[in-house]
């Protein structure tokens, strides 16, 4: 019996491990400038499951963006460890992080961060170029994703010629064009009016339903209701994790 339980536990652990995409252990981030030392994150322990839609909330300056950047492998933690897709990526070099990031993680920003000199098509194409895809493959993918985002009629336009909502749709298209496992969004609706905001949230929901893990920073309670779970940060610490509902969506995306 005991043996059975132990085996059951081990099995559960293993399946849990498989189901978990992001594990942070005692994550700390300290920013040092000449005069001050800011502790942006303090002992953050998080588990985010594959296929989960997590929202991070908290007052301005509490470390949300910092956390998201570490999760997105744009930055290294000062202390603690970070396991991404069962790999310890805590102390990876910039080059290695870039390699992990490519095609696995998509970013969406509050200020869109589209490149002004490139057309909508070229903006969306960019990550594919860096992945080394051929031109014909790129074209097919970009057109497909622009279609999905309902923005293909604007492919030849420049970002300045689009409204904020349209720009954010392009940014989302750029984030998902590589079919990433994880989408990180930092206040994606921050610069949008409510109807455009809703549209973006619906898109994120759709992506999540088709199996993509989404981690989103937001100030809006309304937006956070789209998430399975809300993580509250305060002064660099996780203060509570409310589950909105049980995660039961299937199928979970294939291992990379």
């Amino acid at each position, binding site marked *: 019996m005991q043996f059975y339980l132990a085996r059951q536990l081990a099995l559960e652990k293993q399946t849990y491990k498989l189901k978990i995409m992001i594990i942070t252990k005692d994550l700390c981030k300290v920013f040092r400038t000449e005069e001050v030392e800011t502790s942006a994150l303090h002992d953050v322990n998080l588990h985010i499951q594959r296929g989960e839609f997590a929202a991070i909330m908290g007052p301005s300056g509490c470390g949300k*963006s910092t956390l998201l*950047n570490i999760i997105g492998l744009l930055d290294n933690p000062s202390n603690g460890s970070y396991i991404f897709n069962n790999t310890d990526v805590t102390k990876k070099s910039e080059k290695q992080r*870039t390699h992990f990031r490519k*095609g696995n993680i998509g970013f969406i920003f509050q200020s869109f*961060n589209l*490149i*002004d*000199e490139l057309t909508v098509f070229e903006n969306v194409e*960019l990550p594919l170029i*860096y992945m080394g895809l051929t031109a014909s493959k790129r074209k097919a993918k970009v057109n497909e994703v622009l279609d999905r985002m309902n923005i293909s009629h604007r492919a030849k336009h420049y970002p300045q010629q689009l409204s904020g909502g349209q720009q954010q749709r392009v940014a989302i298209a750029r984030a998902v064009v590589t079919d990433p496992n994880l989408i990180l969004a930092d206040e994606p609706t921050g610069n949008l009016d409510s109807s455009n905001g809703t549209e973006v949230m619906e898109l994120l929901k759709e992506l999540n339903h088709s199996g993509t893990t989404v981690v989103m920073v937001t100030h809006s309670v309304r937006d956070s209701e789209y998430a399975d779970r809300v993580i509250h940060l305060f002064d660099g610490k996780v203060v509570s994790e409310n589950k909105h509902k049980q995660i039961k969506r299937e199928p979970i995306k294939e291992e990379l």
Partner: protein
Amino acid sequence: MIWNNLKIAFRNLWRNKIYSFINLFGLAIGLAGCIVLSLYVIDEYSYDKHNKNHSRIYRMNTSVKMNEFELTHPTSSPVLAATLIEDFPEVIDATRILQLFEPTVIEADGRGFTENNFYWTDPSIIKIFDLQILKGNGEQSLKNLYQVIISEKTALKYFGSIDVIGKQVKMDDSGESQAYTISAVAKDLPYNSHFHFHFLTSIKTHFKNEVTSYNNDGAYTYVLLDEKANAEAFVEKVPGLVKKYIEPSLKAYKKMSLEDLEKQGDYYRMFAMPLTDIHLHSNSIYELEKNGDINNVYIFLFSSILILLIACINFTNLSTAKSAQRAKEIGVRKSLGSSRKRLIMQFLSESILLSFVALLVALLLVELMIPIVNSLLDKELGELYYSTPNLILLFLGIALFTGLFAGSYSAFYLSKFDPAKVLKGNLKSGNGKSPLRQSLVSFQFCITIFLFVSTLIAHQQMEYIKQKNLGFDKEDLLIVRNVQKLRSKEVFKTAFLNSSYVIDASLSNNIPGSFYDGCSLWKTSGDDKKPYSTRFTTADFDFAKTMGIKMAKGHYFSKDRASDKAGLVVNEALVKDMNLTNPIGTVLKTPMGIKTIIGVVKDFHFVSLHMKIGSLIFLHPEGLPQSHLAIKFHKHQKKEVLNLLKYNWDQQASGFPLDYFFMDDKFASLHKSENNTMLLFSIFSILSILITCLGLLGLSSFTTEQRTKEIGVRKILGASNFSILKMLNKDILKWMLFAIIITSPLAWYIMNNWLEAFAYRTTIEWYIFIISGATAMILAMATISWQAWLATKKDPVEALRYE
């Protein structure tokens, strides 16, 4: 208001230290380079203008073409001066100068000095050249034979004082020592005079009887015109003198009229050259002193304008790039109600302030550069600099204009901004890719590449001339002058031949680079009765060996062959000139009698590399004077040979001063002025490259700063550092390629023309263009990549943090 503007301007400049520094230094270096080059140009044009009569003085030049031999000399017949005064009422005075062919030794106070600037002249020189007599009676001082006027500096050098009236100096005159009595001391002519005398003595001392023949043409003749005279009419009348005075002697000696001469394609011309043209427009090998070159003046003038242009473009480019960066600030200011006029004033005061500070720095740089340029070019530019306040005024104007232009361009550009658009961030200027700015940069690179190419080609030409086979071996060759002064020059020579340091030694009357006398030759058979002109020299039996001169045909004089005495050795140029099909054994009539050619030497450069090799004959050495000893020694034994020389000279010379030189040094000094001009030119092309790169550095730091966000986004999307570097370099490479393609043919054309002026010239190699283009490209890429590399090092998160 203005004060307030300046205050804000200063604060802005201070806040952007790197930008201000780059902009300031670029413009300062450009202005300084331009000022120094302008000084050089102004100085070259200042020659002989110190003379209050300068606009009324003309020199008589002769231009002759005989049998393919073309020469313009600055001299004419000594008779001409008197003739001009007689024939032309407008000529109120004339003076002649005769010069030593070789340096001679002058003894004073028991010491001897090698002297070159000893002139025979007429007393009228004092009036015409406005000489300042410091001691003695000017008018009377050249009245009698063997009186001499000494220059102030020479008096100080020889006697240590200028109280020298009545003292004597001794000069060698046709083998005899002749005493001259100092009758006056005159101020030296300023450095920017086309000649400088040390001693002036009466021409009567030289011509015991006044010359009456037009055959001699060795006198520098200057005339002074009346104040009311029509100078142009005079200049037009001068060529007519040939018909009246030269033709009779032409008929007498050569049995030819002027028409006959012209018919066979030759000519004899005379023309009057304004005094002020001599320095820049007269380049005969027989000038009293080496003159300047109008081409150099043009080149320097041109490059000074180019450098200034590069610097001004930089300044404008950087200012506009900077102001584009401030678009947001402008937008905010405008939306807050700042008037357009105020903004324009602000930009103008900023850029004018900067350009004036740059001028100040430039003036400091000029102070530093003047001594260097002076020592390179043997000039005294400092004096000119301080005595030409107008020049500074000119540059004040240029600085003001640059500041105004750059400032108003920015102001105009920015005041066009629609604040709404700017604030929305929809301004396309953000990427720093303004086509105007980029085309200006590529224009700068055109200039830079051009300067690069021309410097390289000019350098190659100089090297070519230096390396060119002289036809004799100038290395390890020591030349001793005045050996005729020794008790026995043969004993002297033998002393060297017996030394283990010495390979060979030879006595001769001339050595390559010295003055050669000329004479005429006639064929003795065939119909060809016309005279051929040639230079002649005498040298002992060891000459060809010592000099490393090769025989083309026949043999050189030998002691053991008595028949050589009636022989003649000629060079290949003469064989070609006289069209001798079978030179050995050809009998020629010479002023020294009938001679048979026994040998032909291969051509060697006996005058200068700037001239084509002319005809030359060697006379049998027996009984002829020899004044030089050439010593060929073993490599690296210079010091030993010198010691030997000093010892033997003291044994033989009875106090006569020793005068010697090394042939390779002499050739180096012949090319010194070219080399230094070249060096200066190289310095300025490097400066221009420096300024261009400085500008590019500033500009690319803006560009990358502007693109920080974009670079961050690209990196987040997975871009490698290399792809970022590639992206940032792509544009400039396109423009550079364009610049190279535009500039290369132009540079080729201009430099090809420049090379035409040389008798012997290098070919322009294609790889020069590749080298220049590649160097400019590498420099540009290095500049940009450095900035780009800094940008890629930035944390992408950081780049996106601030909007």
